[in-house]
Structure formats: structure tokens, C-alpha cells
């Protein structure tokens, strides 16, 4: 060090505050920048036109593999293999990787949304989403692949009218139904020795602390609206408010034990709750498992029919394999086999003959179960029954906000 260079201590003293200021300033600037830039951009997509379908499907080929994301209890399993999917592999040469990863619509949507937003593949070629808020978001955000109808001959030929015309996907642009079911009431006759027939029965003080309701705002809200004689599909914000008050009253009376996501069926089976809002197939599967005390009723005031739909998300690696499977599922034998396990509403009435034929061949318990199924108005509803079931209201983002602000506080208290 020579004499001209300043004392290092002095230098440090001089620069330190400045250095600190610089850090501070850059920190603040970065924070400010981040605060203003972190907005989540909207991705509103225009509706798919015919040319878009052609453009997408041109040059796409079969890859021999398919990744399928579905809900639990939606496919019969034997050990680790799925007989129906094995048969599909044999007939089509497409190997299916099947995963039961969807627990409910909003959680699954939340999981895949960031990937879809950044244009990445989510690793699945088919996902199953219920008609409702998340379906609407996927559609509006442009995360779905428009379907090529020339690849869906069986669906277009066989599917019943309720599947060909769906208000949430007019013209079957993006979706092919997997199955439909009814939201009703399940109750345990071991504890309830009277008959439950209507929604109003869930306000009965005899069931104090023993009623389970669903936490999903639309499911819950629909029950409140039916109780007041309102058709949920044509409901107005004023109707929502009134329904919310009714549901709040039910909660305040101490009747409700819990608002369930989807784990209600063991709770009813074990007697934790005695009566519960339930999806038809869940209840029937529980009965099939040997629970003889469980009853399922379609409420007298009315009930909604929901549909779980197969969709091909944007960025899917094997779209041709996916659409091949969707259509394959609408061949009578395959549809019947699926139906006999999941026990929801038949995709078309003609399947009754196939199931009857299966029943004639079957023996013992299997035969009894199939014969009972053919008789069930909830598997083979008449056209009148179907007309009585109501749909879900399609909510715009603004409406959804208002809808949630009415029914979510009932659940969260």
C-alpha cells in the first residue's frame, strides 16, 4: 500500500452507507416492480371453429399409448390391472396408463392450471371433469382440444339424447360424457327408522347433529333452491340468497354435522352421520359392497343430474389414442361393462338389452345384481324421469363470485 491510497478504513466508511442505500434502493425497486408486474394474465379464448378442428387433427397419428386421469371407483380393477382397459389394449393396440388422481374438480384444476397456462403438457391425454365451474374455466381459458367428430362414430350413433345435447358444451365440441348421476340423499336405516323422501327431511330435528351436506357451493346451493321450489338451472341471485338463508337456518339448528368434500359415504355407512347428500353411484357401490342398511332416494322436491366428461387437455401427447378410446367406450359391450361396475345412469336406453343378456348368462349373486340393475330407475331412467332431473346453472366468472359469496359462508361459518 503506498501513501497516496486512502486509508482502507476510511474508504469502507465512505462506501458503506452508500452500498447499503444501493441495496435498499434496488430491493425497493425490485419489490415495486414485482408488485405491479405479478398480475395473472387472463387467457380468454375464442370459441373453437370448424377450421380449428381440422388444423389440430391434420397429420396427427396413433401412438399406441394413452395416459388417462380419472376419479376413484370409476373403473373395475382386478388386482393391479383393469380388465376393460386390457381389452381395449388388445383390440386397439393402445396401452393405457390409468391413474386415479382426480379427487375433486377444483383441486385437480388448481394442480394442472399452471402447466396449461404455460402451454405445457399435463401428462394426461384424457381427464374427467364434471360439468360446472371448472369445466367452464377450462373451456373459457382455451385449455381444451376441439374434438374431431369424424373420429366419434359410435358416440354420435349410440349416445342418448341427454348426452348429445348438453347446455355446458353445445354441439359436443370439447367433451364426451364418461357417465352421469343424480345428487340425492343417502341414509342409514340402522339409525333412521322412518322414511326420508325429501330435502325438507334433512331439516328434521330428529337428525340433530347427524346430517351430512356437501361443501361444494353448487351442490349445496341446489338443495337449498329445490327446497324453496326453485329450479337451480334458471335461478336468480335473489333465489340464491333465499336458499342461502334456508341452509344457514339448517346449520344454526345444529342439524348439520359436517360439510363433506366427497368422503361422506363411509361416514353414512359407519353411522357418523345418519343421512347425507350423496351421488347415486357412490351409494349403489356401497350397497354392492354388502352394506344392506344404506338407502338412496331422489328427493321429492327435485334433483340435479350431473355429467362427468372426458376431455383432451391442450398439449396432450396422444390425442388420436384419446379420441379412439372415447369412441370405443360407446360400443355397446364396452359401455355395458363399464356401467355394470359404476352403476350410474346408462348412456343410452338400448344398453338395457345388453345388460339383460349378461344377466341371462350370469349366475348367483352376479345375476341378482344385474337383474336389479335393469329394474333400477336410476340406471335406466324413463324419459319422464330424465326430464324431471334438472341441470346445473352455468355461471359466468362474475356470477360465480356472487354465487360463492352466498353459499361458501354457510360452509365455513
Amino acid at each position, binding site marked *: 500500500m503506498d501513501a497516496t491510497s486512502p486509508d482502507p478504513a476510511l474508504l469502507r466508511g465512505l462506501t458503506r452507507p452508500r452500498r447499503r442505500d444501493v441495496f435498499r434502493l434496488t430491493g425497493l425497486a425490485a419489490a415495486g416492480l414485482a408488485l405491479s408486474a405479478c398480475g395473472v394474465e387472463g387467457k380468454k379464448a375464442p370459441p373453437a371453429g370448424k377450421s380449428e378442428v381440422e388444423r389440430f387433427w391434420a397429420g396427427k397419428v396413433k401412438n399406441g399409448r394413452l395416459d388417462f386421469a380419472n376419479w376413484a371407483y370409476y373403473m373395475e380393477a382386478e388386482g393391479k390391472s383393469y380388465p376393460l382397459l386390457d381389452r381395449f389394449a388388445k383390440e386397439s393396440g393402445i396401452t393405457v396408463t390409468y391413474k386415479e388422481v382426480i379427487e375433486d374438480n377444483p383441486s385437480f384444476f388448481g394442480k394442472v392450471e399452471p402447466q396449461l397456462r404455460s402451454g405445457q403438457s399435463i401428462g394426461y391425454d384424457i381427464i374427467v371433469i364434471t360439468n360446472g365451474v371448472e369445466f367452464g374455466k377450462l373451456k373459457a381459458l382455451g385449455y381444451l382440444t376441439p374434438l374431431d367428430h369424424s373420429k366419434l362414430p359410435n358416440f354420435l350413433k349410440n349416445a342418448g339424447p341427454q348426452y348429445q345435447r348438453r347446455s355446458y358444451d353445445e354441439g359436443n365440441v370439447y367433451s364426451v360424457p364418461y357417465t352421469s348421476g343424480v345428487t340425492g340423499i343417502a341414509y342409514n336405516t340402522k339409525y333412521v327408522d322412518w322414511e326420508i323422501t325429501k330435502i325438507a327431511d334433512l331439516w328434521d330435528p330428529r337428525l340433530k347433529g347427524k346430517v351430512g351436506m356437501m361443501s361444494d357451493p353448487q351442490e349445496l346451493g341446489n338443495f337449498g333452491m329445490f327446497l324453496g321450489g326453485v329450479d337451480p338451472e334458471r335461478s336468480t341471485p335473489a333465489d340464491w340468497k333465499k336458499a342461502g338463508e334456508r341452509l344457514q337456518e339448517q346449520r344454526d339448528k345444529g342439524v348439520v354435522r359436517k360439510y363433506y368434500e366427497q368422503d361422506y359415504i363411509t361416514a353414512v355407512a*359407519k353411522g357418523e352421520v345418519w343421512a347425507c347428500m350423496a351421488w347415486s353411484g357412490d351409494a349403489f357401490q356401497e350397497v354392492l359392497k354388502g352394506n344392506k342398511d344404506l338407502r338412496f332416494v331422489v328427493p321429492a322436491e327435485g334433483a340435479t343430474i350431473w355429467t362427468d366428461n372426458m376431455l383432451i387437455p391442450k398439449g396432450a401427447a396422444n390425442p388420436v389414442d384419446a379420441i379412439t378410446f372415447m369412441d370405443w367406450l360407446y360400443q355397446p359391450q364396452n359401455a355395458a361393462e363399464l356401467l355394470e361396475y359404476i352403476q350410474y345412469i346408462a348412456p343410452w336406453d338400448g344398453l338395457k338389452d345388453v345388460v339383460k343378456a349378461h344377466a341371462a348368462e350370469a349366475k348367483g349373486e352376479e345375476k341378482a345384481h344385474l337383474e336389479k340393475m335393469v329394474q333400477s330407475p336410476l340406471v335406466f331412467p324413463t324419459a319422464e324421469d330424465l326430464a324431471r332431473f334438472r341441470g346445473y346453472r352455468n355461471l359466468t366468472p362474475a356470477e360465480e363470485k356472487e354465487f360463492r359469496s352466498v353459499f361458501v359462508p354457510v360452509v365455513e361459518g
Partner: protein
Amino acid sequence: MRRVRAALAPYLLVLPGGLWLTVFFAVPLLAMLSLSTQEGNLVEGFRQTFRLQNYVDAVTLHWEPLVRSLLYGLATTAAAIVIGFPLAYWIAFKGGRRKSSYLFLILLPFFVSFVIRTISWKFLLTDEGVLLGPLKDAGVLPQGFHVLATDFAVIAGLTYNFLPFMVLPIYVALERIDPRVIEAAYDLYASRTQAFLRVVFPLALPGVFAGVLMTGVPAASDFVNASVLGGVDNTMIGNVIYNQFRASEYPMGASLSFILMALMLLGIFSYARALGTEDVLEVAAR
């Protein structure tokens, strides 16, 4: 060259951790802070409007679960001290050669997933389950009696799940007490109670404080216990936040998260002040 390296050393040491925290903690935190004052919805996008009303809405709409969570966190912490202190004391002073085995036993539940442990509680405590079913049939308990869906069930579940985080720091603090200090107390005619109250307990307080940090804070923001063991009136703020994000109501979820964070920092710092602990962070690091 060596001087340069020596000067760089501290920065190099802090680089991995600093980078990790910047990328995975500071950046998301800033993004959340930004989201908390935005407006909009997922489809049309969220825009930054610096809308502080979000915070007001969050409190007016959700004050009940917010207060409940803080109370649950408090109750859990208190229960964990009451159960955990004697346990840690016993291991530290009476554990003998087996100390590490006992500590291992305390950590053993961690080898099973948090969620599975909580669900197994539900199985155990359900209304007509293995525990309550026979008691009801024998007429010991009334038919309508239930444990699930009560404040007790949620607080008990929280206490069970966070207890090791209370036991371990208290154990460490007690273990570090020089036995000669206690002997000195006896030499000065202190009774056993006095020796405990005036020597052992004060020296264990930093451990208790670290335990409070590690149980109270996560307990108040937990949502698993409330959703598995709780019922209609046990919703915690963690459940509310989770549902807000699930429904893509990002601004509401973000502002609730920040309110929770602020309340907890406030609680911890006032506790530290009441305790006379000079430096919260230093104690927490012990």
C-alpha cells in the same frame, strides 16, 4: 488472491441458502403480496389496482375462523407445554443411558405420514367406532355423544401432531443445564421446588420459547386436523385459505395469508417482549 478468497468466503457460504430462500421464499412471498391487492378473476385475468379493501373484506368475511385458529393455536401450545415439559424433563434428567432411545420414540410417529396419522384418529374416535361404540352400547355414554366434530377433537389432534416440536427444544435446553448449577442451588438450601422454579425452569425458558414458535405457528395455520377431525363449527383459517386458492380466488387467499402472518408475528414478538427475551431470532436459533 488468498485475501480475495477470504473476503469472498462468507458470501460463498451464504450463497446456496440465500439463493434457495430468495427463489423459493422471497419471490413467492412478493408475488403473494402483489396478488393480495389485485382485482379480477382467472378467466379475465387479475389486475393490480392496489385494492386495500381486499384486506377489509377478508377480515369482515372470515373473522370467525381467523379468531378460532388463533385460539386453537394458543390452546394447542398450552397443552403441548403441559404434556411436553414433564416429558422432556424426565428424559433429560432421568433418562439415563436410554436418552437417545426415548428421543427416537418421540420422533417415531414422524415415520408415518401426518395425514394418515390424523385419519387413523378419525377411525379411532368415530361415533360408532372401536372406542365409543362399546361404551355407548354399555350405557356409559349417551347415544348422542361424539368426540369428532368438537373443539376438543381438533385441538387434541393438533397437540398430538405438534407435540414433538415442543418436547425436543425443551429437552435440548434442559440437557444443556450444568448440573453444578442445580447442586449450587441445593448447597444454598434451596428446596427441590425452589431449585426447579428458580433455576431449572428459567434456564429452560428459551427452549419453551422455541417450542412455542414451532408448535403455535404451524398449529394455528393447520388445515388437515380441522377438515378430518372437525365438523361444522371447527373450520380454521387454513381451510378457508385453501378453499380460496382452490376456487382461484387468489387475492382473497393471499390477503388472508398475510393477515394470518401479521397476527402471528405480532403474537410472537409480544410474547418475546413479555418474556424479556432480548432477541427473538437468536433464541429461536438455539
